């Protein structure tokens, strides 16, 4: 099949960008979307032109590195799929596709279709962990975890941190991403001691690093390649509100340690 691609080209962060039109010819329906771009890029390099820069790594839909908008839809038209797992059999000859990077204030463009998602790392650094230094863990089967809780935690933990949720949200909100981690850890008995603090720190950091507010469009769930449910957002909001009612703040109250 032959396709027309309108691709966002921007040499670097802060620079002006524009759409450039390319013709992708003789595309096999077995190719992945990124393989189609590989073929296009090979042609550009042979002509001495700068290839289209896009992020990708595992190409198995698990590392979360790839992702861009295809005709306004994060990761393209197929549900539950990262762009590296999207195959050309879902397109037809003559299709015109517009490719652009994630558009969000918190994800500045680095080059072409590549954005900077360091804001996600900052949200995790704010509290998306259970504090357990290496070597200090008790025997694993000491704490039983009811299977429904474990399964629900797993489904939240499946988040790959790709940023599609933010990109699709009209507000550029990161509630789905943040709530997935808050819920994963908050559902497990191991996560209880830091649960309130975690919710407060992650939510407030999320707001501080430039993500928008959630107004329940739920477009995030629709484009999430791992199908993470917006019900986790409700769970996070509950944790957050309860923590605030308890007077929990972002900075932990440091208990005075005795001198020695």
């Amino acid at each position, binding site marked *: 099949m032959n396709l027309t691609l309108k691709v966002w080209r921007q040499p*670097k962060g802060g620079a002006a960008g524009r759409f450039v039109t390319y013709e992708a010819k003789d595309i*096999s329906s*077995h190719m*992945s979307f*990124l*393989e189609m771009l590989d073929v296009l890029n*090979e042609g550009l*390099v*042979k002509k*001495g*032109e*700068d*290839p289209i820069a896009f*992020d990708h*790594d*595992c*190409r*198995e839909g*698990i*590392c*979360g*590195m790839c992702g861009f908008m295809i005709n306004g839809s994060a990761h393209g038209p*197929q549900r*539950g*799929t990262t762009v590296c*797992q*999207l*195959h050309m*059999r879902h397109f037809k000859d003559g299709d015109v596709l517009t490719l652009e990077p994630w558009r969000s204030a918190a994800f500045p463009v680095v*080059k072409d279709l*590549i954005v900077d998602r*360091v804001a996600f*790392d900052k949200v*995790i*650094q704010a509290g*998306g*962990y*259970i*504090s*357990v230094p*290496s*070597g200090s*863990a*008790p025997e*694993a*089967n000491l704490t*039983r*975890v*009811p*299977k429904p809780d*474990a399964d629900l*935690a*797993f489904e939240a*933990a499946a988040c*790959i*941190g790709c940023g599609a949720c933010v990109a699709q949200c009209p507000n550029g909100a990161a509630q789905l991403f943040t709530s997935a981690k808050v819920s*994963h*850890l908050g559902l*497990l008995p*191991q996560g209880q001691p830091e649960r309130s603090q975690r919710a407060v720190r992650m939510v407030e950091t999320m707001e501080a690093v430039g993500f928008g507010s959630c107004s329940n469009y739920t477009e995030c769930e629709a484009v999430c390649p791992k199908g993470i449910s917006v019900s986790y957002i409700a769970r996070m909001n509950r944790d957050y509100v309860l923590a605030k009612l308890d007077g929990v703040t972002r900075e932990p109250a440091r208990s005075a340690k005795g001198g020695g």
Partner: protein
Amino acid sequence: MILDAKIPPGPMADKWTNQQSHQKLVNPANKRRFTIIVVGSGLAGGAGAASLAELGYNVKCFCYQDSPRRAHSIAAQGGINASKNYRNDGDSTFRLFYDTIKGGDFRAREANVHRLAELSVNIIDQCVAQGVPFAREYGGLLDNRSFGGAQVSRTFYARGQTGQQLLLGAYQALSRQIAEGRVEMHSRSEMLDLVVVDGRARGIITRDLVTGKIEAHAGHAVVLATGGYSNVFYLSTMAKGSNATAIWRAHRRGAFFANPCFTQIHPTCIPPSGEYQSKLTLMSESLRNDGRIWVPRDPKETRRADQIPESDRDYFLERQYPAFGNLVPRDVASRAAKRQVDEGRGVGEKKNGVYLDFAEPTQRLGQPVIEERYGNLFDMYEKITGENPYKVPMRIYPAPHYTMGGLWVDYNLESTVKGLFVAGEANFSDHGANRLGASALMQGLADGYFVLPYSVSNFLADYLSEKVTTDHDAFRATEAEVRGRVERLLKSRGKRTVDSFHRALGKIVWDECGMARNAEGLRRALKGIAELKQAFETDLTVVGGGEELNQTLERAGRVEDYFELAALMCRDALHREESAGGHFRVEHKTPEGEAARDDEKFAYVAAWEWTGAGKEQVLNKEPLTFELVKPSGRSYK
């Protein structure tokens, strides 16, 4: 040169405890005076960086991805082994140790493997405490499944995403340390060389992949945890960015490269569909718990799989290896599948695969159970092939997956360059000539959480008063070399793209140094690699500049290093006149066609020493001695 593995004294089961009890320590107040460089943020690097920072060291961690959460450990699917014996089925430290040594075809170092088996149980404890959502039973306890090469159920798993969950655990521990200010994280940053001062690793030279800035970083010790080199085959299960540049550049600075020809071909991957194929996707070994592998008996078979009656099918693994059946180790399963395809019984449009069939277990257990166990793998298969594996059998074929070879390290994970530690897949140490399933995650985390904190501390204790800085001639010289190399590559104005060279190189290595090797083919490969490298030097084209994000330039540097690595792989394969694990020399096989080892001549680690550009590496040997197990024929019948 005599290679001293520095194996601690005492009986095998006490060696690690003895080492821990007698090693040198750095007191807590002094730890902050040290800086440790960790390259790579996967299971070994991420866990290592977090654990070292928790101890109080300053850590600088580097990864080429945009976030440490994306390291390729994340793609591991099936599980992680530990000898917890929760199943009451006879597992023990010794049995895990034994299975791993035997699985590696008696080409691994006993002491390292024993330590790995001992630490396996601590890893599970650590991960569960971090909140890794392992699969559980209805009673709330941890669940297990079986993997190849073992007759016990010792594999812990999180559906088909075990690597992801373990990596996110390490990433979260690392994130905590970044927030505490103990780890300085450098993402989108690639190590391009190692700086050696007076025989000691003292830093690295990196390129910022966004700005192109070349930077020098100094530390008291350097840890490489940069993974394996399967992308030398071009088509492999590795991430596209995975590369060998860090370990190869360290090799050129004096770190010996051990057993490069020991590479693992994974039996269950989706067969390639065309020339444009950019990578191969693994279907987890765990599928072999329930899935049954078969081919039609008749090479001219044209019926659909579900219309071929039982009598016309050959379940060749169950037939050839009744004791282990579909769960034979990877090297054995891969070669068996290759034989079927070579003899014309392959399935699919290109006749380049064998069936992995779930019809019988689906009938026996019901589709919901199969979905629960393998749902995400089935979905992934359908996305890639457009076929529904609940209805038609999967088609699978072996593909390059893991590399057992890597930089030589002693018991403390220290390479032949003082102060340079190598962890995880990047080293050679624990899997011999073949790795068993669910053991890579175990080794990465054992190295990261539990071995590096001890061995790096023990090393640093001698250098308390030492200050490190990049203000040294060795830094300036190495940085200048790196700049020169980048500039040289940028001037490439030939006609061929980097990828076309990489594909051509991969084809040579796959054809001649893949699942089956012979002397003639290996010599042909060496000649072909040399010719291709010459063409690379004159006909490569690189577009764009150095002071910007330039993915073509990144790939050019990586592929250039693969040429030298590929040549060393072939030379190692040529010199090893035996078959062992993943290294199958067709000249050396048993009458039944299985790998025939030669323990008399080849029970050693081949550690290759760089002697200068354009010269052949020199072979050094570390003899392997076996105290606890007696090398025997490796039968899975």
